[in-house]
């Protein structure tokens, strides 16, 4: 049967760098045409990367690129496994240079590296496009950067033109899998069902271990063996776009109907209209069936014509976030933590809105207006950590909040310990939709400069 294998080497920036080698070993063992995708760009990762590039023009691509790709580069090149990653982030050319450097350092022949561009809207021209498409009011003086989600076809074109590695910035996550599948099967731009099927193969792969037992295991209820050595997923894609999800050989983790269903609906809103730059996907008739141990087949995903617009995300400066924590333990600890909370509200609540958590009682299910926390009756917890968080444009006020939290050491309730405080700049984001003809994507090949 004509199948195409796609392995996933990373599901976010900061993922485990020892995940790719077992995936690549498995792809080599199974034989046949294959690709390895790296998904490294969460919603705000790109904005962080833009800031890194501004502080040093050589940076702005994924900081773990060398650690994650280095150990599998030789095997991928030797076995014709195309590497596709959005690890270019805010500096795809910098990532391509780094990859070329890595290949040289390992004594490998220079790989053909393609760079997909057209996503970045941070320059004056891009900003003008954003200005024309934002329907919500925004403060342009706080603009940091913007980028649009590009699709799979430029990735496919680059592979057909001979790329062994494709570096992108912002593309829709599943397009990283769809691109190489298009290059392999030769699907047309209106093969909607096949495009939708392979898009959902990419969707299942794009978060790495989230389809192989990660973000899933619940001891005693949803057990997964070998979580410490969880294998990353491999999709076997068929010529009609349907796929079978498997995982790297000789690893822990689990591929089951349950893990696949959870990831299938992850970040999906209307299951009959899941929009990507390439196709609109419909899960209404999708089927998920176990076909063997750690083998689950997804079929029946249908496709409809792609949207006329591309989604873009615009980042603006969002002021300062300050967070501070202090713990109380032993007899009457909860009452002491609650008193500390009361002191902080009285001393700093006039400066900015404060969120409180009593870690041990409620730390993450609560809301920023403290409605859930205020509903929980006072009890007798013996180990409670107070957390205070606030945001303000004025850094000095945030600094004061953190000083006040620290002062609970000496001026607060008895036995308070373990003070930690931190502050960081925040970025706000808004989304907009831009007619795709305003945002053509393209690819070109990395060329070694004489200085390199």
């Amino acid at each position, binding site marked *: 049967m004509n199948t195409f294998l796609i392995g996933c080497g990373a599901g976010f920036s900061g993922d485990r760098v020892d995940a790719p080698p077992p995936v690549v070993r498995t792809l080599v063992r199974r034989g046949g045409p294959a690709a390895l995708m790296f998904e490294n760009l969460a*919603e*705000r990762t790109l904005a962080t990367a833009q800031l890194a590039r501004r502080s040093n023009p050589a940076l702005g691509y994924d900081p773990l690129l060398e650690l994650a790709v280095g150990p599998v580069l030789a095997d991928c090149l030797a076995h014709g496994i195309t590497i596709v990653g959005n690890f270019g982030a805010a500096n795809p050319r910098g990532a391509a240079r780094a990859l070329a450097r890595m290949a040289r350092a390992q004594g490998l022949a220079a790989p053909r590296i393609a760079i997909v561009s057209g996503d970045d809207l941070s320059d004056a021209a891009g900003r003008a496009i954003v200005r024309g498409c934002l329907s919500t009011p925004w403060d342009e003086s706080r603009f940091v950067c913007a980028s649009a989600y590009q699709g799979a076809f430029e990735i496919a074109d680059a592979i057909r033109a001979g790329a062994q590695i494709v570096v992108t910035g912002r593309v829709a996550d599943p397009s990283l899998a769809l691109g190489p599948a298009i290059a392999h099967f030769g699907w047309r731009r209106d093969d909607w069902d096949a495009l939708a099927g392979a898009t959902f193969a990419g969707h299942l792969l794009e978060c790495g271990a989230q389809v192989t037992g990660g*973000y*899933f295991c*619940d001891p005693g*209820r*949803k057990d997964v063996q070998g979580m410490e050595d969880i294998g990353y997923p491999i999709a076997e894609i068929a010529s009609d776009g349907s796929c079978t999800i498997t995982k790297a050989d000789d690893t822990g983790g689990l591929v089951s109907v*349950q893990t696949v*269903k*959870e*990831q*299938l*609906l*992850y*970040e*999906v*809103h*209307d*299951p*009959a209209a899941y929009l990507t730059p390439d196709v609109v996907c419909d*899960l*209404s*008739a*999708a*089927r*998920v069936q176990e076909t063997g141990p750690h083998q689950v087949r997804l079929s*029946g995903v249908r496709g409809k014509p792609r949207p006329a617009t591309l989604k873009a995300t615009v*980042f603006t400066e*969002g002021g300062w*976030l300050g967070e501070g924590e202090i713990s109380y333990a032993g007899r009457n600890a909860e009452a002491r933590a609650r008193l500390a909370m009361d002191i902080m509200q009285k001393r700093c609540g006039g400066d900015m809105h404060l*969120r409180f*958590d009593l870690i041990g009682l409620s*730390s*993450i*299910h*609560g*809301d*920023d*207006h403290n*409605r*859930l926390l205020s*509903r929980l009756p006072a009890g007798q917890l013996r180990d409670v950590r107070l*957390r205070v*968080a*606030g*945001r303000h444009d004025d850094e000095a006020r945030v600094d004061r909040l953190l000083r006040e939290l620290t002062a609970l050491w000496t001026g607060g309730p008895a036995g308070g310990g373990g003070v930690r405080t931190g502050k960081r700049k*925040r*970025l*706000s*984001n808004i*989304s907009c939709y831009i007619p795709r003809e305003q945002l053509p994507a393209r690819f070109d090949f990395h060329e070694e400069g004489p200085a390199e």
Partner: protein
Amino acid sequence: MSDTAVTTLYDLAHARTGDKGDHINISLIAYDPAHYDTLVREVTPERVAAHFAYREPAAVRRYLLPHLGAMNFVLDRALDGGVNASLNLDMHGKALSFHLLDMPIEL
């Protein structure tokens, strides 16, 4: 007493949260397809909205996927502004699936 028994969703279904901006989706998947109709009857968008009322979601929508024994809930503006604005340690709302699973239901 009626002959109905009360349990929590945790006993019948598993769930996963995903975030996009200030919106979350929570999938709810029956362990046993035989329980799907009970879930459809009990876990209405109105009840989910009430369960998450403290977060003041702007809207709660439910999508049914009977082929998969699953439903998908979308809660608009339930993340206090989302990943880049929330003061929550869990700015993605990753843990909110387990809040849904605490919901009591009648069998």
